[in-house]
């Protein structure tokens, strides 16, 4: 048997193990950046701030229990391991201990439930009088936002003011989706036939958007159902709202003009709306100001004329299962490559 060799190798490994483990833990800990775009531990909204109270509490308690149980397991495993001369003590149990360790989890659970109930009550407060009211509607696979008091409809990019409550009606036209902007608020499902609600106040305006994503599995392109929330100062928000309520811009070039004509005589208008034009379809996203959006395809592509062309030609190429039929002749659609370029130019001009 080569037991002695094994034992020697084991002894050597044991000597270096702690050092190696520490090094590995240090490297891995460094890889745990918490300030990520969809991090739930970054508090930028009132809803997230409310639930952070029980959240922090469960974290601390979980860490204590974790360390305690792991420590006991390791200590017992080492202290009571089999070795010459050791015999097991024979006993069946201890009632007093049983009572103690029944009480420990009861106390922990009580500690968690107090902030939990507080947070539930806080969530159930009535909507503020000056709240901005928005219908958020889930579609396979994009989000529609309707500003109820303003006659503004947009898709996949939500603009809200800082410091003012935004109250959402959450709806769905097809399957169950879930509305989630981790840094601002926890998620609430969008259930067809139901109207759910969530409300939160964004704590500060900032130039880069907050990222949101559908959090309930909703079919093929569930992973591609993303959206962005832009938080503005009140003045900037008022300005945005004003421009968003305007009709679609007129074409600024010959190419855009040609694109508009093609758009208006094609299948496009069956599904899409451009305010102030003949296009009044309700199935797909409102395109009145599509040119001003930073992304297309519910947040999976940067919005440029080139990506728009790609999208129009065959959206399912970039977004599997996309409900928008391919427009390119090569993929069974009705538009030539030049026509698609013109339409993309027109759409890019819809600022």
């Amino acid at each position, binding site marked *: 048997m080569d037991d002695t060799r094994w034992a020697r190798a084991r002894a050597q490994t044991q000597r270096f193990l702690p050092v190696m483990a520490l090094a590995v833990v240090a490297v891995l800990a460094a*890889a745990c*950046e*918490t300030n*990520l*775009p*969809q991090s*739930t*531990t970054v508090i930028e909204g009132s809803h*997230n701030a409310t*639930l952070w109270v*029980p*959240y922090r509490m*469960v974290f601390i308690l979980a860490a204590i*229990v*974790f360390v305690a*149980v792991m420590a*006991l*397991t390791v200590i*017992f*495993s080492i202290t*009571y*391991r*089999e070795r010459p001369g050791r*015999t097991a*003590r*024979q*006993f069946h*149990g201890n009632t007093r*201990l*049983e009572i103690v*360790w*029944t009480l*420990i*989890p009861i106390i*922990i*659970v009580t500690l*968690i*439930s107090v902030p*939990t*109930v507080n947070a*539930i009550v806080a*969530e159930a407060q009535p909507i503020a009088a000056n709240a901005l009211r928005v219908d958020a509607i889930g579609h396979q696979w994009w989000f529609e936002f309707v500003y109820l008091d303003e006659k503004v409809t947009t898709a996949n990019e939500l603009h809200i003011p800082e410091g003012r409550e935004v109250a959402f009606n959450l709806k769905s036209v097809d399957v*169950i989706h*879930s509305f989630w902007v*981790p840094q601002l608020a*926890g998620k*609430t499902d969008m*259930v*067809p036939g*139901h109207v759910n609600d969530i409300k939160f106040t964004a704590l500060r305006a900032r130039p880069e958007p907050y*990222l949101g*994503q559908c*959090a*309930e*599995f*909703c*079919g*093929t392109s569930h*992973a591609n159902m993303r959206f962005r929330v832009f938080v503005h100062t009140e003045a900037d928000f008022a300005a945005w709202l004003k421009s968003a309520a305007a009709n679609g811009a007129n074409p600024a070039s010959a190419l855009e003009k040609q694109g508009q004509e093609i758009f208006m005589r094609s299948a496009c208008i069956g599904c899409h709306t451009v305010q102030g034009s003949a296009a009044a379809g309700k199935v797909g996203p409102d395109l009145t100001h599509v040119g001003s959006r930073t992304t297309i395809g519910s947040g999976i592509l940067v919005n440029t004329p080139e990506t728009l062309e790609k999208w129009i030609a065959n959206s399912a190429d970039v977004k599997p*299962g996309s409900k928008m039929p391919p427009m390119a002749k090569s993929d069974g659609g009705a538009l030539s490559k030049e026509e698609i370029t013109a339409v993309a130019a027109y759409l890019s001009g819809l600022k």
Partner: protein
Amino acid sequence: MATAAGTLAHHAESGVWSWLTTVDHKRIGVLYGITAFSFFIWGGVQALLIRTQLAVPNGEVIPATLYNQLFTMHALTMIFLAVMPLGASFSNFLTPLMIGARDVAFPRLNALSFWVFAGGAVILTSSFFFEAPGAGWFNYVPLAGRTYSPGQGIDFYVIGLTVLGLSSLMAALNFAVTIMNMRAPGMTMMRLPVFIWMVLIISFLLILALPPLTVALIELLFDRNYGTNFFNPAEGGDPILWQHLFWIFGHPEVYVLILPAMGIVSEVLPVFSRKPLFGYSAIVFAGMAIAFLGWAVWSHHMFTTGMGAVPRTIFAANTMLIAVPTGVKIFNWLGTMYGGSLRFNTAMSFSVAFIALFTIGGISGVMHASPPVDTQQQDTYFIIAHLHYVLVGGAVTGIFSGIFYWFPKMTGRLLDERLGMTQFWLWFIGVNMTFFPMHYLGLVGMPRRIYTYDNDLGWGFWNMFETVGAFVIAASVLLFVINFFRTMQQEPTASDNPWDAPTLEWATSSPPPEHDFDVIPVVRARDPLWYNRDHNIQAEQPTGEHIHLPPPSYYPLLLAVGVSVLAVGPISHIAFTALGAVIAVYGIWGWALEPTE
């Protein structure tokens, strides 16, 4: 069968036919075990494909539709075709042995349970040849309705789960009766091994939890195929009803998956600590409390569906209460280790690892019991971390412990320890590598069930890390398979009781004779063999009485074929239903008239 009387092992023939017609609980246990382990590997392959796709941002290994089918089938395979039947494998092989009986109460029903399970497994798995279900294992409507899932995948899901549920129901009824009615003299309820208690509790959970699922499945079947609108909001139906019925089943189901492992660990820890289980009654009552509370928590899977504040508070409180009996169990296992003389062989190592890994899963469970916290954790990788710590770190780790512990009893051979310990360490490292970072990924916002993610989100490193971990797990399982085949090539040399264990299954030979015990043992204490050892009580000598065993029967197989063929009628052609019904009626008729002595 007068000719058979008097010869003890008169049915112990080999050959395929003997396995197809067996009604011996030990052989059925082996059938369950081999089938389930094969599905465990198949489910693992699906997991590796999933992890490969997610290894890097914007991965392009697997297209979206296939990915959605893979994670759906991974869950269904692992839950219904691997972990549940692995538990059934242990309960089949061990229940009569541990309570001192010659077989289960209804041996032919037991065979029927297995063959119906096999039928359901074939139906569910064969969907890959047509169209696999791709709406998640929870199969939420309306996504799973005809409008948004027009293909046959969901119908396979409905039929497969109905058939598997039937199998589980029959098995559960059988084992509840066996444990309540067939115990050896002196084996009172409070002397039952903890594993048997867990089997009893699981049986009750299944008996009561399966019907709501069956009703939900029937309603979905009717919605999809016969024009009803139970879940169609456009006609007044409500998709939330599916979620309620599904989770009324789904939550007890979680305990069906984890309780066998808790039972196994409660058997293994005392043996290798060389001392009795600490707080036997506390562990038993904690098991009952978990099962009881498990009925009042289902809506915690639905905290984000827009439930009111009051139900959220109630279900949150019930859910948190489960932490109490769970904590009691963990502390009692630690109490069992305390003051012992721990022998860390593979079985023991897996059991101690179970305590650690299951504790992690338990703790994270309490975290999202708080509804406000859950709004951030629901449907993220944090939940995946939680459920895999419970089901992989908990259930499967416990099952490996059980395999190493009972392997000599089942086969007469001891698995190789050095390979076993290597497997253990790979497993322990792999599980933690794969699933611990998922906590972090969930907290930084990675949702579940996404086939792709952007580089900007910062999830790339840990996803790659997890994928490596998944392959470490795969290596560990591969080592086990090698160990299994190597061991099976050796001569059976294991003694009757190689571990000096206290429970009845070790009182008979390894492997046990077909009739289990030459003489039904008399039980004098909770750890009967240790009691007999310490009091110098010798085993009773055989009296030479004739032991009648139920003869083999092919009717269970025939009936199971009938049921399976009948069940595929709704997704193929009505002629199958008619054909299946004819076979089933013939099977029942033959079954009823078959002599059983």
